[in-house]
């Protein structure tokens, strides 16, 4: 069984259905991308996995454990961490405090974990006593990734990875994600820059108006005429 297994998932807001019968499987140690135009439901899917939206139908399994409509405490404890869209840092807290909040469900060795994240992203160490709201966009994204890693996740969800960041900063963040992945953490990533994300990932899913319409190896998708036309403008 896959590490994260989403089966026939449907959800929405109020009466409005957004996602229809989503099936996604992510294996241990994979980087998987989720593509789709604005309004396709990518963020909704991310929110649903971490328990911010109620699941109408279908199931989410993590490591064989059923997480359908479980409390967010249970979901996070099972090893799912998210870097939310727009980063959602605790703006009034310092970088260190934000990292500490990330360890809310997993309080073992907090000091060591913070040190490791600082080794990983030295920029954060320089800024550790600054308020998160005062950081630059790239530093905030690093802080959000660091915060998610404090939970020692098995899978890291990243929503809108490069939104509003300069290309050079994106390059260094890609590097960071690869290093996280090398330690055995699966990564499920939502990104608008199709070229970038298909280069990063092994497999990808394409989502259109709430449904998965295409999936496969990233290399194949890059040459797929439909993807080329819709996302790469070729």
């Amino acid at each position: 069984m896959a590490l994260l297994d989403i089966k026939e998932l449907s959800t929405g807001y109020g009466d409005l259905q957004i996602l229809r019968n989503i099936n996604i499987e992510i294996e241990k140690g994979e980087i998987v991308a989720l593509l789709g135009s604005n309004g396709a439901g990518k963020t909704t899917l991310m929110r649903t996995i971490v328990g911010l939206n109620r699941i109408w139908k279908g199931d989410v399994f993590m490591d064989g454990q059923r997480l359908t409509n479980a409390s967010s405490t249970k979901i996070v404890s099972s090893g799912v961490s998210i870097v939310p869209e727009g980063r959602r840092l605790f703006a009034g807290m310092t970088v260190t405090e934000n990292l500490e909040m990330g360890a809310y469900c997993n309080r073992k060795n907090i000091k060591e974990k913070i040190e490791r994240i600082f080794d990983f992203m030295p920029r954060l160490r320089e800024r550790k006593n600054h308020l998160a709201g005062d950081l630059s966009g790239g530093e905030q994204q690093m802080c959000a990734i660091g915060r998610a890693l404090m939970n020692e996740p098995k899978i890291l969800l990243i929503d809108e990875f490069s939104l509003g960041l300069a290309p050079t900063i994106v390059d260094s963040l890609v590097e960071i994600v690869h290093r996280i992945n090398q330690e055995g953490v699966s990564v499920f990533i939502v990104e608008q820059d199709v070229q970038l994300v298909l280069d990063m990932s092994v497999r990808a899913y394409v989502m259109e108006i709430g449904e998965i319409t295409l999936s496969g190896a990233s290399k194949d998708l890059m040459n797929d005429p439909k993807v080329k036309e819709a996302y790469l403008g070729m």
Partner: protein
Amino acid sequence: MKDKKIILFFLFLAVLIFLPYIVSGYWLRVLTQTFLFASIATGSNIIIGFTGYPAFGNIAFFGVGAYVTGVMTTTYNVPFLVTLPFCALSGFVLAGILGIPILRLKGHYFAIATVGIMETIKEIVDNMVETTGGGMGLTLPIMVGEPEFIYKYFYYVMMLCMLLSVLICYIISRIKIGYALRAIRVDEDAASVMGINTPLYKTLAWAVSAALVGIAGGIYAYWLSYIDPHTVFGGTYPVKMFAMILLGGATTVTGPLIGAFILEIISELVWSKFIAIHGMVLGLLIICIILFIPKGIFETFKGGFSFRKLLNNLRENSL
């Protein structure tokens, strides 16, 4: 720095403990009233300041506490001190039940909903004429003893209530739930994806806050020995409570207490001479606080007092 603060707090406490042997009956009453407001403000601050949910109508639980003590001492002849745990319990349970639906609202909507609750409970109490006396009010049995002793008794009971509120606030700010509440205040969705059970902690925060306010209400009822719905549910209490919390600093443990002392003592010294414009001055004060020290006295003057900070705040807050 930290030790200094603690020493200062205990010094303040020692002064309060010995004060009844020095000052007169009138000032004892003023101080008891101040303790009452300090209890309400500190207790309410758990939901308002720590969690960031402006429970404007938190006074509802003050009234509930007052009526629990009132009805229990008159109808069932229960001793006063025995009624206090019931005041706390009724506040806790009521806020716990109401919190489940109402804490889904945020900001202004939540504030208005709590005012709605306050008015609803007031109407219910007003119409339960047989048990509560309705609009006629409820007269509680008067405590037996020398007036001097009674003054001191309520002074100490109210002080204990205030200290209990401060202690519980302090504990909450130190343990896991305190961090959870702080995260909820800053960004609730982000707190949730950190694995914090936000509905549970919000509700718990409101319930504890209501319990503390309820105890204050119970003591108030027995102290004044007369309550009626229109004074205990509303009046100027919510506005005063908010002014105190804002003045002292909503995110701190002892801020509301200090706010209560400053506001009550000033109002006793100055405004009691201008009863007619009391409300206007209070409103003016809130505006000044928001303009000059939006974070409260504590946070703003952490590094010492300066006019520059006041002016900077004004510039940043100008419309």
